[in-house]
């Protein structure tokens, strides 16, 4: 057992209002600078839809993530040798138009136009070429709220095998939102793709970063990430990606996207996993088995053996305690209502999703109340087809989706019964495999969702740093001191 701790995220899609506040606060904080105009570490996609960049889920096109070749885990884009061959031309890279060509407006004309025949107007201008446009042709959220629509739905990779029985008609409209950040995977293909070795997964919290000193701008992380969550900054010529806001996480604060999420749908917590079992878990043959195999990598933070091993691995008691109080442990492992995004990419992603309950297509047979017999037929009547959710979250396994939706639906039925004194047959609880108490605890976490319960984040463990006294006193001025050993001098540190 090789215990590692990861700070991970669960997003409850039922709660997403599709507002994009997360995207804006993230962008203002991190990518509001030249070279990053088109970069959204966090974005929100309307599904059905093509996403950002276009059709990112189509790995036949982008060849991101991993695949099994002769039973062995390899990058889908091919082994290192083939990468070397393509080092100056990578056909798997998304082009600017796959993202979008960023634009602005000739705002200045509104205040400073001379007297003209027509009212002045701020015309759109390409941020790349500086040329006037008649209109933008694509953007990072171009298909917002379209619910697919006639042209876009056909390009949604999650719909490709469902086209026959899903019609893009008014009566059968369905829609959901998918907020996305970097998955900070257990088996990150971006890290494996980098010819410079500039990407790494932090040992202490699992956050995956691009070392800005080490990056040489090859961009193989961009194509290698199946989620398309590493980007190329054309000003610095370095790759950049979501940092899981590590400066905040280290301080025990949630990420900006989480704290500013007005749907209150994001949960952050610590998970313990066995780093020695990652390769094995990502290598199972059946894609549908990837979800259970990733589950099996996670460790029980209450298990005495795990605790001992964790301590031995240098994980502090505070972090073990956080793992025990982790909302993610409940959602992912104990209640099993959160699922990984596209487990078939074999990266073992660490941002998981609770699927949404959508409106009924027709009336529920008995109106207000649902008996145990109706719970699964009811789920099959929901507007978002379970097959669609399965393509997103379980590599196509609809039985898992139905089970999860069954638990969420039963939670609502049970909570409703408390308001109206309706009795719920005991068989319902047996059917979904959760007790009343568990459902009430789950409802509390999902609905009441207090800040301290949504985010259980231990501060960075600095105990191993021998220079804490120095650190406490140091400030930016210290950096102007000459490099140690360059000029002989009396060092502050020499006193110890």
């Amino acid at each position, binding site marked *: 057992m090789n215990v590692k701790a990861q700070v991970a995220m669960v997003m409850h899609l039922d709660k997403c209002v599709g507002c994009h506040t997360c995207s804006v606060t993230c962008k203002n904080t991190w990518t509001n600078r030249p070279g990053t105009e088109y970069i959204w570490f966090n974005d929100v996609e309307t599904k059905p839809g093509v996403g950002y960049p276009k059709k990112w889920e189509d790995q036949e096109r982008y060849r991101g993530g991993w695949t099994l070749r002769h039973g062995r885990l390899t990058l889908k884009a091919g082994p290192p040798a083939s990468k070397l061959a393509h080092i100056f031309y990578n056909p798997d890279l998304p082009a600017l138009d796959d993202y979008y060509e960023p634009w602005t407006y000739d705002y200045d004309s509104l205040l400073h136009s001379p007297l003209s025949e027509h009212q002045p107007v701020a015309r759109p201008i390409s941020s790349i070429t500086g040329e006037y446009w008649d209109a933008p042709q694509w*953007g990072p959220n171009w298909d917002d709220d379209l619910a697919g629509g006639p042209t876009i739905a056909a390009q949604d990779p999650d719909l490709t095998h469902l086209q026959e029985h899903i019609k893009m008609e008014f009566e059968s409209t369905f829609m959901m939102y998918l907020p996305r950040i970097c998955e900070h995977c257990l088996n990150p293909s971006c890290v494996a793709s980098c010819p410079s070795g500039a990407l790494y997964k932090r040992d202490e919290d699992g956050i995956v970063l691009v070392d800005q000193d080490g990056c040489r701008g090859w961009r193989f992380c961009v194509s290698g990430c199946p989620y398309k969550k590493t980007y190329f900054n054309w000003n610095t010529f370095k790759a950049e990606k979501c940092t899981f806001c590590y*400066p905040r996480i280290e301080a025990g604060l949630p990420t900006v996207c989480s704290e500013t999420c007005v749907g209150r749908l994001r949960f952050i917590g610590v998970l313990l996993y066995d780093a020695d079992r990652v390769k094995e878990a990502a290598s199972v043959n059946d894609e549908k088995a990837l979800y259970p195999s990733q589950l099996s990598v996670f460790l029980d933070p209450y298990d005495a053996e795990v605790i001992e091993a964790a301590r031995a691995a240098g994980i502090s008691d505070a972090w073990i305690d956080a793992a025990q109080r982790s909302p993610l442990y409940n959602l992912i492992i104990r209640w099993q209502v959160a699922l990984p995004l596209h487990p078939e990419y074999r990266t073992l992603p660490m941002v998981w999703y609770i699927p949404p309950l959508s409106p009924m297509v027709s009336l529920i047979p008995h109106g207000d109340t649902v008996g145990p017999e109706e719970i699964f037929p009811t789920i099959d009547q929901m507007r978002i087809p379970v097959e669609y959710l399965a393509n997103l979250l379980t590599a196509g396994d609809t039985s898992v989706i139905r089970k999860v939706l069954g638990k969420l639906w039963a939670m609502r039925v049970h909570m409703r019964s408390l308001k109206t004194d309706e009795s719920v047959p005991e068989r319902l609880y047996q059917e979904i495999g959760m007790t009343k108490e568990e459902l009430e605890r789950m409802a509390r976490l999902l609905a009441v969702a207090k800040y301290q319960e949504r985010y259980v984040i231990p501060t960075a463990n600095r105990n191993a740093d021998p220079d804490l006294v120095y650190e406490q006193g140091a400030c930016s001025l210290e950096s102007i001191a000459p490099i140690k050993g360059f000029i002989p001098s009396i060092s502050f540190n020499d006193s110890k």
Partner: protein
Amino acid sequence: MERRSPMKRAGAYLKKGRFLNQGWTEESPRSREWEDLYRGRWEFDKVVRSTHGVNCTGSCSWKVYVKNGIITWETQQTDYPSMGPDFPEYEPRGCPRGASFSWYEYSPLRIKYPYVRQTLLEKWRALLNVHKDPVVAYHALMHDPEARREYQRQRGKGGFVRASWDEVETFIAAGLIDTIKTYGPDRIFGFTPIPAMSMVSYAAGSRFLSLLGGVMLSFYDHYADLPPASPEVWGEQTDVPESADWYNSGYLIIWGTNLPMTRTPDAHYMVEARLNGTKVVGISPDYAEYVKFADLWMAPRPGTDAALAMAMTHVILKEFYVDRQTPYFLEYVKQYTDLPFLVRIDRRPLGEYVTGRFLEAADLEPDVKNAAWKPAMWDKRRNGPAIPIGSMGFRWDGSGKWNLNLEDDGGTPLEPELSLVGQADEVVSVNFPYFASERPTVLSRRVPVKRMRLADGEDVRVATVFDLLMANVGVSRNLEGEPPVSYDDVDAPYTPAWQEAITGVGRDAVIAVAREFAANAEKTRGRSMIAMGAGTNHWYHSDMIYRAMLTLVFLTGSEGVNGGGWAHYVGQEKVRPLEGWSGLAFARDWIKPARLQQGTMFFYFASDQFRFEELDSAKLLAPFADPAEAQHPADALALAARLGWMPSYPQFNENPLQVVQTARDGGAESHEAIQSQVIERLKDGSLKLAVHEPDAPENFPRIMFIWRANLLGASAKGSEYFIKYLLGADGHVLGDESPYRPKDIEVPDEAPEGKLDLWIDVDFRMTSSGLYADIVLPAATWYEKYDLSTTDMHPFIHPFNPAITPPWKARPDWDTFSALAHKFSLLATTHLPGVHEDLVMAPLLHDSPEELAQPFGEVKDWTRGEVEPVPGKTMPKLVIIPRDYPHLYDQMISIGPQIEVGFGTKGITISGEPAYAELKHNLGVSTHEGPSKGRPSISRDNQVANAILILSGASNGRRAVEEWESLEKVTGLHLKEIALPRKDEMFLLDELTAQPRLSIAGPAWSGLESEGRRYSPFTVNVDYHVPWRTLTGRQHFYLDHAMMRSFGEALPLYRPPIDLPVYSLPESQDKTIVVRYLTPHQKWGIHTTYWDNPRMTTLFRGGQTVWLSPGDAAQIDVDDNDWIEVFNQNGVTMARAVVSHRIPEGAVFMYHAQDRTVGVPLAPATGDRGGNHNSATRTMVKPTHVIGGYAQFSYDFNYWGPTGHQRDTRVRIRKAREVKWQ
């Protein structure tokens, strides 16, 4: 930390680490020093609490980050006080729009200096050079018709140049003085909306204009966000649950309010309620964002919602009142609604029966005080009529018995009979109007009645409102001669089957939802809620749609209950510290009353939209009404002005200062004498109401200030009319004037263009209101000043604080208007010396004894000799007030003596003495020589904010207790216990900046709230028996004013949306479609704010768009993102198509308030710049909305009056094949 050389660091990349995970993973020994890069990015110097003063109901608390003196970004505060251990919290409130605000700080859209259009500035400078005196120069400029037209025509065409503050202050002050002298102060107007979003900034301009005698225009009604049904049935403007109360609901219908999109910070409570077991039903014509959260979606055709609601009412009445009696419901409607009250059944000349007015004490015991205002019930105990206390008559009779206890004046308990079935003297056929057929017709329905002889000997028949409602809705009760009705009866109006043909919604869904809604209310004692909003409210017949929907919450005992009742969310506002704010904002501390004008009425005339009126009122009348009662809406407005129903400014065709002077010159000594002379002059025609000649130059509005607003880009319905007629620039009205003309209004053949002399825009960003202005002034942003923000969505009062001091030449609005006041007073010492007398013509006000002015809902016109002209009774009040113009600045910056005398709101008055002492103590006193000396100082915006907080019950427990005590005297109830536990709390800016605070419950609002109780409207009424401010004191189903009956709207019913013919371009061969044009609030802006910034433009399609269904798009060969031209008789706009199957066929959505400033090309139809969403709309006034002087039908600002609804609009669309910019 040890620093290493760059070479060493680079070399580290070659070093191998330890392998684990079957050799799959390598542990790297490399330095991670570079990580400081992102840590440095996250560093900042300070965080300041502020919020966004945009016209939205969010009122969210934000952290504004400042680094190196620059505002870098903002994220939300998360430190709201807790809602309790088992309740979701308010954190983090916010939305993507607000999160993008910081861009404006340093953007090229920022207005950094005062600007004036070059032509105008040069003319002004030249004349000033000649005349030396600015007032004389201004007069000369405005009386040179050619020069005036020249700069007017240039409006909106660019050509701005910088000017200094001093120069523009002089120019504007001169303009104000010349206008006051030449035409009168009531030719000066101010437009700024929604004080709640930044009260101090609103008050800055409104206080200045109120001291001048200028006019503040209303907005809430003009926006059509005011639900007229609310004053009609409750006597309340709007009062709604805070969003946390949704979580208390057991059954939530969301009906035409897009909570995720327009109540973004609040939507989580709906979602979380759902997770907590609340059932959610979405009713929307499109697959709106909120439908995603519903358990069931019903998609009625746009504008047919009342038909759906009537069918649901049918089901609830049948199943919960007839088939089975539901004790909770019966108990509720008897005490809290007008259902047990008695209505006279009138006999028409041809012998048919129709419903008449309420049976009043005047009919039974005429000697009772206020007998015309005390309606009767049928009392079971005495088996006869009885007069319950609590009606409007008791509010003003001094008895102290204005409460909802079921008893009579003598304290004898009453047992009201809801229905006369089984004890009727006879069952008669009554004609109810019916509008869902091709032409209005009547439904003859059986009604049980009592016969009785009145005090004057007249014999009448009476019925209960309940029996009338039953009959109207067509629920059979096996009365003699009554046919049985089944739900499946397609031809029986208001059945579930009947509505199918109208709404397109299946009957089973209607039956199921109605049944579940009521069953939930029965089980939870009223925790059934309907969230409603623009989708159901922005219609011409909004009040009828809402009344049909409100019927559902009344009948299920859900109103005034936590988790239940109506939840109206569009544009609603709530100035929590209302008493303090309104006192200062309208300068009531110095002068009363201020001129406050109904916005819709003003714009209808000022932009000459009345000349294009196409909707003949005669077509709206009940079939049994006298056709003579149909009036052109402009005539109805003139009537409303004459009778004191609605305010009307400019008042007279003469300067109101001159009117008084003339009377004084004629020997009038007392105010009464002046009033008599004015009445005589009005009678003999030597003085006229300006409303009768809106197109005469002496009656033009002359100067207009716009601040905190983008009138032209967002709210100006009929924006092309505004540009063409009010501004005199290139507005493109495509249709011709209407042959339908008013009778009482003079309409010259030629419509005047360019009424306004000066249009002044104060803003921090350039909008179309700025583009078309003559003068643009740079405002401080919301991160650069002190102010206050509140909302009805949550219980907190939020401060604005400056994160940086205003950059460039920007100023907080308080400073801008104070500086204008200063310059004005300086010039006034020469040009308007001494004290002038102004005559203010003011309407009959709600919440004052004037609401008892015109009894029995009869319309009596003194100009036609139907009644004597009596100011404040049969006509407007005529109030003579002094204007001390040379000391206006002193008044502006200090709190005047009237507050000390007493102040309040909504009919509640408290002594101001303790409050005045607190003001002096906290604010300091003015040391400026003159009238302000020794008075509380409000020369700075933070002092104004604190003054508002000191004077208001929501923020000062002492005020709240004083107010409850005041209400105790009128009601005879024990009320002060509501606020007593918080008596010693007072929140000033500093406290609110430290942490948000829960506001204190006071009688300015109708809901109880405390730490453990969420705000829900009318819980004070239900829990404490305080009456509603209506005729009966109860919630009204029945509205008995003669005009309501003539228009067939005494009871809730369905009226179809209005379809007017749609203009087509002459000689055009292009394929077009004619579709309903819906303008709901958008996702990427709050009105036009944010919509123009790079974040929001990038997150959707960056420019004006219109959503169409694939079928409609295909008809005109339009693909997604193609340019289209959208037009009708009112104008033309350019947009790109968004094609989605979530939009129903036959309707398009042009989300409201995109603006013509960003990415809008020329329109082929006009060859000029395309317009915005309001280019295709026009204001249509509903005559019933002008009623006044009658109980809850009495005027108050933004409270009651015609709405400017815009959904009854259709447009024609064609593909725009060519895009040109210049």
